[in-house]
């Protein structure tokens, strides 16, 4: 029998506010119009929630979820770093609709037994979706709690059967300047496409997640539709969005930020308050949403509080050198 040890940061299922409560709260706020409409249509028990996206079928994964309060949907979908659509925090929510995500396919290549071009549906079909409420810590010293829906990265990787030479997994975002205005900029220092990578053992860690949804529905484009990585113990830029390529590699790939500013951003990018960044102190973070008069500062935790799951990956490594 397999008895799972409950990590300290997890909470019993009963304590996690059910997702329906958020939906309800939201619905309540959309006000009388929606409820009046619902009441006037016979047989329609609940008012449809007005968020875009397709409703997903998933199971909660409380053992991987924090009990902290998720940021409101609007905060998660209007405050984004997705430089393919501009560097302003609101640019992605304004312009990401210019990207077409259906149909979508992911090219799998490199050191594995099952390379090829996978339609998104084919890549995901065998897996049961889970909801995981993770903390996301940006290197800019802010953070949010986000209820993702998706599948463990390890499950997908196992099906692709990497061989013994696969020491790293490399990911690429869509490169489509005609759909992504940020890529058309003359003065961008990013060499598109956006690239990220993980060491194989990091990718196989139970926390590594491929998200396809948010708050129970498919991802809005600005959050990295239709499929994105979520590695919650690393700074947000590691969680690459709108993935079109997965490559298993022998050598350590270079990530986009490493290419631009190697002295600021390393390959590992683990959340670590002890390692200073040349721009932002990493000791504290603003947990969003934050207020003007009462900024919501909290102390940043090593590995974003997921040390129990991941600290073992870095045993013996000097994390101030491998930042």
């Amino acid at each position, binding site marked *: 029998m397999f008895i799972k040890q409950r990590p300290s940061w997890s909470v019993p299922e009963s304590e996690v506010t059910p997702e329906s409560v958020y939906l309800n709260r939201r619905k309540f706020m959309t006000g009388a119009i929606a409820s009046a409409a619902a009441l006037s249509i016979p047989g329609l028990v609940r008012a449809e929630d007005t968020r875009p996206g397709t409703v997903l079928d998933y199971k909660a994964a409380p053992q991987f979820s924090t009990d902290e309060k998720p*940021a*409101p949907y609007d*905060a998660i979908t*209007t*405050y984004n770093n997705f*430089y393919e659509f*501009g*560097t302003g*925090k*609101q640019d992605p929510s304004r312009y990401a609709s210019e990207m077409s995500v259906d149909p979508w396919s992911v090219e799998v290549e490199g050191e594995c037994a099952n390379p090829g071009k996978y339609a998104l549906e084919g890549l995901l079909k065998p897996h049961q979706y889970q909801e995981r409420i993770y903390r996301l810590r940006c290197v800019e010293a*802010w953070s*949010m709690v986000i209820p993702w829906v998706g599948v463990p990265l390890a499950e997908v990787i196992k099906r692709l059967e990497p061989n013994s030479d696969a020491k790293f997994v490399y990911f690429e975002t869509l490169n489509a300047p005609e759909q992504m205005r*940020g890529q058309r*900029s*003359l*003065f*961008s*220092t*990013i060499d598109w496409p956006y690239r990220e990578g993980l060491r194989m053992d990091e990718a196989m860690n139970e926390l590594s997640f491929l998200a396809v949804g948010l708050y129970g529905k498919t991802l809005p484009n600005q959050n990295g539709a239709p499929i994105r990585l979520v590695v919650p113990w690393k700074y947000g830029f590691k969680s690459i969005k709108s993935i079109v390529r997965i490559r298993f590699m022998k050598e350590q790939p270079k990530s986009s930020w490493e290419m*631009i500013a190697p002295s600021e951003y390393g390959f590992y990018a683990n959340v670590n308050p002890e390692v*200073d960044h*040349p*721009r*932002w*102190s990493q*000791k*504290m973070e*603003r947990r*969003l*949403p*934050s*207020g*003007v008069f009462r*900024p919501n*500062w909290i102390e940043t935790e090593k590995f974003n509080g997921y040390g129990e799951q991941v600290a073992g990956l870095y045993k013996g490594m000097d994390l101030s050198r491998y930042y």
Partner: protein
Amino acid sequence: MASAVTNKWRGIAGKCLVFGLALLPLGFLVADIINANLGPDPGQVITEALGIAAFQLLLVTLAITPLKKVTGWSGWLRYRRMLGLFAFFYAALHLLAFLQLILGWMDLWATFTKRPYIIAGAAAFLAMVPLAITSTRRMMKRTGRWWKPLHRLIYPAAILAWVHFLWQARSDITEMVVYAVILAGLLVVRARWFGVSSLVPLKRT
């Protein structure tokens, strides 16, 4: 006599207009704060808006002399001090917003010694302080022949503010390039009209 009076009123009306315009960025910000319209991270938005207002006003202040030269109307000069003081006002608010809303007055030493973009911003701000202090008529008299060379500190201040802006860029520098073109334009016309030495602070010419 009559025309002197209308001129005086015109001057006051012009000053009120410029004053009102210069307050607009603050007005928009306050309205956004009241309406909770700044998104989930208001401290960051406020800090950025004040920083860009300070920098833009600095550039407008620098544009006054060229405007006078191009239009042949010396009335522009009337607004220069006010614009410069507004630039300083926004820079001071920008610094305060950063300390209060982003930093929470924590980690001050590391912030001001280890972060290149902050050091550039702080240097720009420090260069603006003596200009604000010596902007009154009385201080103008007291500083006498030193006033003009002292006030050339506005050039390094503007350049440092731009460097500060550039160094906080993550990846895309389109905006910084646009401002670089404007700033370079303003400096180059001055150098051409009045000689390079007219740009050197603290040098009496």
